């Protein structure tokens, strides 16, 4: 390329002061990004991807030691004075952070925050700041930008806040934009909106973009080139197609193999064993060696850290056996084997479940209305079956799960477990029922008591129910640890000594202790690293097969759901809008919301960049849902009947699913004029 790169990083090393000497977080990273280019940096926790990004903008804390060189637009970042750094950030780098709920100052109007940096740098007159803020907000598609500029962050929805953060990053017309997990905290339909705004603004300004993410789908969708990071180094880099089609590094290949995919129906995942290394305890030699199928135990891999070397014209990989890495083609045997149709009577029946939260107002805090968090949900789960509840935040899926467990008060409907109504149970009855139903939480970090050894944590439910001795005491608990793939020798340790995946295993062991028949799994893998998710998903599937467990699986990740479910129910604003066998939902969805949702999920396949339905707007406030069909303001098929009349939830004639829609039907390609089409990154 003739043009100079906007960003050029050479031999970047970052270490943090630790109790036992410096901890290396980044160990020799080289990167180049050119104008008009999107570089995706992929990695798991501890890979050094975020630290690299902060180092590029000179934003690392004072206890970080930085070596190597970073040039942004010709300016040396590592050796810049504080004043030069400030100018650089104001004029040439735009930074977009992950969580839009915390990246904005709650006490300052959004408009002021958007332009504040430019005013402080003397590039924008104070008097013009208001107009400029509105213009910037308009450019990221915020409706009523003038009015919105004067509002505070809490008056913005999550997606709008992230738009505002993008506007802020664009305020100085930067040459380099660094986006660190910009959509991870957002719902998938909002993620699609944000990625498209980001791509459009990038194309309009010709900036260079670094997109940091753990989501291979997002990378495949928007990046031109990819750098895969592991253990503080770039282990593979190249054009996005080569990386996905022909990965040369065993880690890249294994990562691509381990993720569940929306576009395929596999029966089993190929997890990467073990867990990503902590920066403080890197193995000598190749950091991936303990987990590498190709190099594990190889002397050369243990002895020396392989350099990043060219593999073919544009690709580079850091592996002693780079040529031999397996291509990400799954073995044919992994194709879905039809699961026997469960025939038994349903174990759990939920019938017309309602959960309402009061809205209070006025001097006396009187109840003036209700939020219908769950508004007439019916479903059933049979033994050995997995039924999934999917939907975006606020759709009521978690509340449904909690209501089944008796953790929230219901306002109506029936819950039958094994033929017995749970509604009228007293505390003792609930306790008995809970022996057979267990809840597994999303966050393995906070759901384990930190001051008890994990053996005690797992034994606790046994003691509460007074069956510890009857079931076999310590021997039984040890058996539970083996069951979830942990050595019983770790029973004396405390939760903080375990990684996220191990903690989730402990959580599962505890849930299994009382030999339940139904597990309610609330986002059980959402907090885990990509390579760990597959391990837990496989464990759950094995347990189900061996123990005949029924699962009510609550998740927002549609790929994981496709992989694990037998049946899927899609929720929107407290109601199930479509329900059916997994393959029908994924292959032939009937409801426009299901169709939009599936279309919004990025697939880890750069050739599949496609037209998609980008839903307008965000989920409405559940306190005042739209009239008629609650989806109508965002629906591409809506007409005035939809605004007037709520559709019934009925089987779609001739199809396998049931849907709540006046006009159910398969999606005919990407109907022009009905759907907004978008080429992700130009």
């Amino acid at each position, binding site marked *: 390329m003739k043009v100079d790169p906007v960003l050029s990083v050479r031999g970047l090393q970052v270490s943090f002061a630790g109790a036992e000497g410096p901890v290396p977080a980044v160990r020799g990273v080289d990167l180049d990004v050119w104008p008009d280019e999107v570089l995706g940096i992929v990695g798991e926790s501890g890979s050094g991807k975020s630290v690299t990004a902060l180092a590029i903008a000179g934003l690392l804390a004072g206890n970080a030691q930085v070596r190597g060189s970073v040039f942004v637009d010709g300016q040396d970042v590592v050796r810049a004075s504080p004043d030069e*750094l400030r100018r650089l*950030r104001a004029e040439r*780098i735009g930074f977009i952070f992950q969580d839009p709920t*915390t990246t904005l100052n*709650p006490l300052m109007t959004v408009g002021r*925050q958007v332009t504040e940096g430019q005013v402080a740098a003397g590039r924008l007159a104070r008097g013009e700041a208001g107009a400029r803020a509105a213009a910037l907000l308009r450019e990221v598609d915020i409706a009523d930008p003038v009015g919105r500029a004067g509002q505070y962050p809490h008056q913005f929805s999550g997606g709008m806040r992230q738009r505002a953060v993008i506007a802020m990053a664009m*305020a100085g017309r930067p040459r380099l934009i660094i986006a660190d997990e910009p959509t991870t905290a957002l719902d998938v339909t909002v993620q699609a909106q944000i990625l498209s705004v980001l791509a459009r603004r990038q194309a309009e300004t010709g900036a260079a973009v670094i997109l940091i993410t753990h989501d291979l789908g997002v990378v495949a969708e928007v990046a031109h080139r990819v750098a895969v990071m592991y253990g503080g180094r770039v282990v593979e880099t190249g054009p996005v197609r080569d990386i996905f089609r022909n990965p040369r590094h065993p880690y890249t290949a294994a990562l691509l193999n381990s993720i569940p995919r929306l576009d395929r129906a596999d029966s089993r995942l190929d997890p990467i064993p073990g867990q990503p290394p902590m920066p403080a305890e890197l193995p000598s030699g190749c950091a991936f060696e303990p987990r590498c199928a190709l190099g594990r135990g190889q002397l050369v891999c243990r002895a020396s850290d392989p350099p990043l070397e060219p593999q073919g014209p544009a690709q580079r990989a850091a592996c002693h056996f780079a040529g031999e890495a397996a291509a990400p083609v799954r073995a044919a045997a992994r194709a879905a084997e039809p699961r026997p149709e469960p025939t038994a009577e349903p174990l759990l029946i939920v019938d017309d479940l309602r959960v309402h939260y009061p809205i209070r107002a*006025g001097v006396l805090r009187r109840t003036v209305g209700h939020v219908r968090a769950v508004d007439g949900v019916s479903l059933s789960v049979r033994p050995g079956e997995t039924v999934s509840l999917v939907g975006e935040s606020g759709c009521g899926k978690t509340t449904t799960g909690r209501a089944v467990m008796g953790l929230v008060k219901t306002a109506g409907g029936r819950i039958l477990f094994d033929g017995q109504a749970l509604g009228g149970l007293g505390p003792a009855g609930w306790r008995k029922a809970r022996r057979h139903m267990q809840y597994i939480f999303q966050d393995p970090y906070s759901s384990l008591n930190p001051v008890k050894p994990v053996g005690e944590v797992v034994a606790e439910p046994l003691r509460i129910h007074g069956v510890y001795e009857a079931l076999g005491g310590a021997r039984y608990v040890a058996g539970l640890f083996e069951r979830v793939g942990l050595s019983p020798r770790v029973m004396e340790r405390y939760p903080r000594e375990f990684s996220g995946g191990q903690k989730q295993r402990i959580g599962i062991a505890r849930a299994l202790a009382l030999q339940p028949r139904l597990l309610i799994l609330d986002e059980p893998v959402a907090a885990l690293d990509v390579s760990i998710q597959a391990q837990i998903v496989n464990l759950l599937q094995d347990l189900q097969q061996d123990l005949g467990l029924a699962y009510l699986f609550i998740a927002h990740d549609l790929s994981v759901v496709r992989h694990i479910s037998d049946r899927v129910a899609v929720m929107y604003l407290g109601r199930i809008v479509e329900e059916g066998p997994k393959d029908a939902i994924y292959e032939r969805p009937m409801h426009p919301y299901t169709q939009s949702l599936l279309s919004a999920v990025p697939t880890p396949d750069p050739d599949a960049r496609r037209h998609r339905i980008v839903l307008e707007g965000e989920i409405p406030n559940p306190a005042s849902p739209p009239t008629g069909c609650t989806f109508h303001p965002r629906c591409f098929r809506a007409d005035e009947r939809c605004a007037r009349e709520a559709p019934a939830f009925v089987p779609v004639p001739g199809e396998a699913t049931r849907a709540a829609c006046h006009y159910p039907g398969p999606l005919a390609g990407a109907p022009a004029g009905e759907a907004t089409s978008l080429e992700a990154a130009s």
Partner: protein
Amino acid sequence: MISYLLRRILQLLPVLLIASVLVWGMIYAVPGNPVAVMVGENASAEQVAAETARLGLDRPVAVQYAAWLGSALRGDLGASIHSREPVLKLIGERLPATLQLAALATLLALALGIPVALAGAVAPNSWLDRLLSGWSALALGVPTFWLGILLILLFAVELRWLPSASGYVAFWDAPLQTLRNTALPALTLAVYVSGIFARFLRASLITELNADYVRTARAKGLPERTVVMRHALRNALLPFITIVGIMTASFIGGAVVTESVFTYPGIGRLLIQAISSRDYPLIQGCILVILGIYVAINVVVDLVYAYVDPRIEYS
């Protein structure tokens, strides 16, 4: 907004009522008879009984309370048993002095505490931070009476800049004289409280300085000064408002030691005198007024929150 205010006040009224019942009950639970104290040791049993009846103290406690409450609601807190003067007048004489002391002490504590917190939080664990933390610890550790005496020795006895005992002069009549009179007791109170302020604000500032929005502010290229003052400090001051409210309230009636050392005519001393002479109406009156000011400060704190924090809705 108005409804929000009304609701807050409505919520606080029961607090006042319950407190007055508790105080009433407590006084009666403690042995001792005010009439006996008043009429003197040599009085006969008949004299005591007559005086008791005259004051209405022979009625059942509940009836006495009801009567008291009835007149209190009409703005009459009765007369002191001891001096026979109206309770409201006695309190009215002391109230301005007390409020003045509380206000000045709070201002001084803020002036001492905020810079210490800022300097420490900007560079945590630096030598300056350690030095300032040491100062805060010292401020918290020194007994108030001891500090008061020390200040008197220094400023009144040694340097003769300020008076040692402080009569009250209304601020509007002689502002300078007022300040001179109030300076030493206020400083005594402020030193201790500045230690609390500094510790609390430092911790809260350090939390804010590590918040995501501060990182965002730095990423836009703002000068560090602006990052700290405009972003971190404003957010750190939010939880701090409550602490300031609590401390200011504690100066009302809770500054007895300081008031005694400086013979300052505050409500705290009035209350102690009333308790030692079992002057029921005066005790009740003092406590009611002190609690009333607590409640008022509470409401003011809420108003300040509603003003500075856009997230609070007053619906």
